């Protein structure tokens, strides 16, 4: 059964995908040598619903009148070989918490950089478990109230595929752990906002994944000039729901 669950989020890259986005570019007058110190991309994720193609879980993630999309992961993707992100050495590892409360993983979705750790904790009376068969090695640990399990994920497929996190005792408990091999990613909050700084200028794509909706979007490549501040807003629609794809 778990093998079926594990593949809920199959990759569906569609280059040239129709993206309802407003893209504006503000080029700074001053450019630095490297161009990376003040080059930035910022934007807001929105979800435009269609009553004929409902996303029933959208009620948890679509926020406010502006329909901001929360709990989505946005990743900056180099679109040419000459602007691959440099490997980060000597980076201080961070530890993130994924708690178990009210028969849910909290947060349900977490995005970490490769090398970071996740602290799984059970904060309620019910006896829980945390299991992930996607990572190498997989893990499967029982957690009584107050117990923790710290894990450093090794499989880093970024927004292509999160690690499925489950509790074997409670099938409705689900979590998703995105492990990104670089630092240019953002888990959105209720504002739907994201921002990337400190990357070298070049050609980039944005990739968006929302595991609860099996939403997936990959933009066309875009040239980011040195020192520019690019506003890159994205609107997802039911076209980006996996269940709508044929």
């Amino acid at each position: 059964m778990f093998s079926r669950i594990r593949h809920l989020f199959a990759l569906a890259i569609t280059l040239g995908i129709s993206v309802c986005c407003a893209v504006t570019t503000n080029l700074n007058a001053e450019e630095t040598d490297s161009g990376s110190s003040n080059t930035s991309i910022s934007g807001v994720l929105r979800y435009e619903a269609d009553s004929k193609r409902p996303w029933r879980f959208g009620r948890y993630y679509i926020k406010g009148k502006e329909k901001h999309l929360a709990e989505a992961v946005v990743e900056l993707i180099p679109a040419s070989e000459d602007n691959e992100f440099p490997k980060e050495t000597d980076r201080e590892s961070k530890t993130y918490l994924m708690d178990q409360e009210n028969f849910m993983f909290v947060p349900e979705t977490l995005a970490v950089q490769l090398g970071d750790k996740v602290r799984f904790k059970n904060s309620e009376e019910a006896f829980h478990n945390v299991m992930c068969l996607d990572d190498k090695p997989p893990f499967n640990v029982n957690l009584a109230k107050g117990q923790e399990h710290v894990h450093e994920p090794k499989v880093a497929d970024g927004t292509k595929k999160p690690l499925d996190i489950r509790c074997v005792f409670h099938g409705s408990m689900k979590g998703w752990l995105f492990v990104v091999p670089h630092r240019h990613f953002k888990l959105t909050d209720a504002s739907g906002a994201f921002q990337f700084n400190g990357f070298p200028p070049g050609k980039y794509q944005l990739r968006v994944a929302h595991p609860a909706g099996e939403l997936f979007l990959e933009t066309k490549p875009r040239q980011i000039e040195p020192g520019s501040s690019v506003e890159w807003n994205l609107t997802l629609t039911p076209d980006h729901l996996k269940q709508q794809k044929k």
Partner: protein
Amino acid sequence: MNPQNPSTQTSDTQDPLNLNRRQAIKRSLQWAGVGMTLPGSAWAAFERQGPDEELVPFDGAPRAVPNRLDWEMLNDWITPQDQVFNVQHYGLPEFDASKFELTIDGLVGKPMKLSMDDIRALPKTEQPMTLECSGNGASKGFMNAIYNSKWGGTPLASLLEKCELDSKAIEVVFYGKDTKEEVLRPGTNRELKIEVPYGRSMTLEDAMNLPLLLAYERNGAPMEYRNGAPLRLIVPGWYGVANVKWLTRIELRDRRYMGRYMARDYVTVRGERRDNEDVTFVETSVTRMNLKSIIARVTRRPTQNGNVPLRAYGAAWGDGTKLDRVEVKLNNGKWQRAQWDESIPQEKYCWKFFWIDLGDVKPGEHTIVSRAIDTNGRIQPSADDDEIALKKTYWEAYQQWPRKIVLES
């Protein structure tokens, strides 16, 4: 449909899914404004809910998940496939569906071996039924494992009669294609490992008197593999565990079958209070569904004079015993009688929907709970009642389920 004359429909009757299309269209238009229209059958769930009603989320309830009923979004009396739960105990069996056969043997004069083509050639009947997992509602961690379907297939009783039942037969055992190694008395010097098929049983009397179905369709379409295709036993009024998937053998026996899922698992252990107040524990196999109801959703209208007009919707079901009424209580108030939703089919083995106006309520925290009452006078118990409080296993979780909301002004 007449609630006094429910249960099965033969295939030459009018297809219920083609009825009442106007209601469905109306319902779709109502939801269109909030982006929740779903394609489905003709019967809108919670038909009375108007476009001016806003859902009040339940406080402290886990989020809805795929493959579980989503009460707050359900808009069809027939449950959409993406809200249908699946449980299997011995995994998903691998087999060649084109060579699938059903064997009927044991204490019969004429054993049978039937291909799916043979079964499809038999008289076809449709059986509407609400199927609930007996663990549904045992905790917040296992909620909404229930769905309503119209199963299509051939009745079992007439087929058994054709097999010429031996007079010594008292038990009918149903085996699935799924098998697993079971370990008895593990860790002892009498440990025994045996490879067994998934099995459930019932008395011959039950098998002949309940409208059992050998089903190969769900909602007019071929059944999905994970739902038990190509052939599934459908047992109206019994918990999901009795509805054996991938049904491949039916055996008539002269003694009770004691397979794991009859005699070791899915056994309810319950304390029963005797006259002298001593508690005696009794173990019974999980079979018939219990009387149950739940508040499915709560809606509000705009605040008027500082108070919020509040309405609750819900569902009730059981083992086929006729439901008399549902009562709803707000906080510590009196039980109030809810209204049945008469716009949906009133089928014997299917859930019924209800609604109730709870009046103008002050903003703040509130608790709403329902209880179903059948025509025998049986009342759905609360968690504090002995039959629930003294139950030591989680199956048969039919206690009242209080729902909390926080009303904003």
